[in-house]
């Protein structure tokens, strides 16, 4: 089924998922912490939009509620919490640039191509349209993991973790038409609790090593190195 044969709403869904991929690249490479949080908020909003479109094209009605939940949680509440955290940790003007942006971006592009290649053998002719979005979701997950590897600042690592969750959610929504509402609510609560715990942890980390650079968390090595 080529693009021109799809109904307009489904084309719109493709555009939205492509924009989700773009936001994950922005998350990967953006140096300023506040802008990264905003990019994450946009990613959450776009995933909520995809959920709404899936609901509009004939999915279950509870998807509207799911979309609202995602919007409220991922696009509004969690970014607000992170924003507040950043302010309390004096990180508002923090800039954490990648020292070698070009190889990291090239690696991310390679991950996208790899994700596409992995998803190719999934047959089921009528599922091709959703298979393509699954490829995008897998790319978002992999790029999120790459982000956790490439960036050293703790708050950014949390964002990477959250964007992995966004990717998985996108895959679930597009491929299966949404999870049961109970599962959704459970997952949403888990994410919220994780956020609160992260907040607590950040203060602990900063108190013990006086910085939020996770590369400094090296006390548990075999060699008797002393991290002053």
């Amino acid at each position, binding site marked *: *089924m*080529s*693009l*021109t044969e799809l109904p*307009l709403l489904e*084309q*719109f869904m*493709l*555009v939205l*998922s*492509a*924009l989700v*991929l*773009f936001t994950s*690249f922005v998350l990967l490479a953006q140096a300023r912490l506040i802008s990264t949080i905003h990019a994450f908020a946009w990613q959450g909003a776009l995933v909520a939009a995809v959920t709404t479109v899936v609901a509009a094209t004939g999915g279950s009605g509870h998807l509207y509620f799911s979309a609202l939940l995602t919007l409220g949680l991922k696009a509004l509440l969690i970014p607000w919490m992170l924003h507040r955290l950043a302010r309390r940790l004096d990180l508002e003007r923090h800039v954490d640039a990648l020292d070698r*942006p*070009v190889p990291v*971006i090239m690696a991310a*592009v390679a991950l*996208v*191509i790899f994700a*596409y290649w992995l998803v190719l053998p999934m047959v089921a*002719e009528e599922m*091709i349209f959703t298979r*393509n*979005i699954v*490829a*995008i979701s897998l790319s978002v997950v992999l790029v999120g993991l790459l982000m956790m590897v490439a960036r050293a600042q703790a708050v950014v690592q949390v964002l990477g973790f959250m964007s992995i969750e966004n990717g998985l959610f996108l895959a679930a929504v597009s491929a299966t038409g949404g999870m049961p509402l109970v599962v959704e609510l459970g997952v949403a609560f888990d994410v919220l609790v994780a956020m609160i715990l992260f907040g607590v942890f950040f203060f602990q980390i900063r108190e013990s090593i006086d910085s939020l650079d996770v590369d400094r968390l090296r006390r548990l090595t075999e060699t008797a190195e002393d991290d002053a």
Partner: protein
Amino acid sequence: MTASHWILAAVQALLYLALAPLLAGWLRKVKAWLQNRRGAPVLQPYRDLFKLMHKEVRVAHTASPVFTSAPYIVFVATWLAAATLPLLAVDLPTAAIADIIVLAGLLGLARFFLALAGMDVGTPFGGMGASREMMISTLAEPAMLMAVFTLTMTAHSTNLASVIDFQLTSDFTLRPSYLFALAALVLVALAECGRIPVDNPTTHLELTMVHEGMILEYSGRHLALMEWAAQVKLLLFGVLLVNIFFPWGIAQSFAPAALATGLGAIVLKLGVLGIFLAVGETVLAKMRLFRAPAFLNLALLLGLLGLLSYVILEVGA
């Protein structure tokens, strides 16, 4: 292809020359309004060009024939690149030459001679402008070609008339690849035409100049040709953006009504584009030179994402 078609093609080529200063004037006017001024009249660039044409030409002692011939070469190459781009009508006989890569090649030829002219006089300002311009164009070229490839993968042709035809004849489809290609081409156009945030076209400080640095030594009709060429280049990129991505309104036949609609459509579209460009120039600030690579890397990334979305999302099994 009758004689009238060829005459129409010639009229289109001349129309490019005629409209370019108008676009520049409109841009300046909108920027003035945004800055709460009245600004110069929209027709002022025409008067500036006329004035420069009649002024005496002064050439440095150390300048070579390259310096005196470069304005003509730059002007002609830019004009030829623009003249074949469909402005009013899609099926003109010159449309067969309107290949995107040939267009990029002709603009490259113009840039080559512009940079040589900057190096010719032997002052540091020209060398500085030339070296910076070559760095920016080096990074803009793969971004532009990547966006072009994305378009070509869908339209299966590098001929601009075919690409526009394809867009006109297919039903309205939302393509993610086109969206990314549009964003990439906008960024590339800003860099190539030397607009904010890459270069400030109204600066007077030599150390901040890129394009102005290369034409610093020119005067009289040479300067008029160089300025006009820069305006034609801006019009070229504007027409490229609006006619490829929003081609509705362009004349598909040669009936006078269709041509009139085409002219009205392009003037309207360019007017809107001018407003967007002026707003962008007012809101953004010129970047430090070595942040331009990050800007152009973003353009390349958008082009790459356009290609990837084409491969992943838009093609069937």
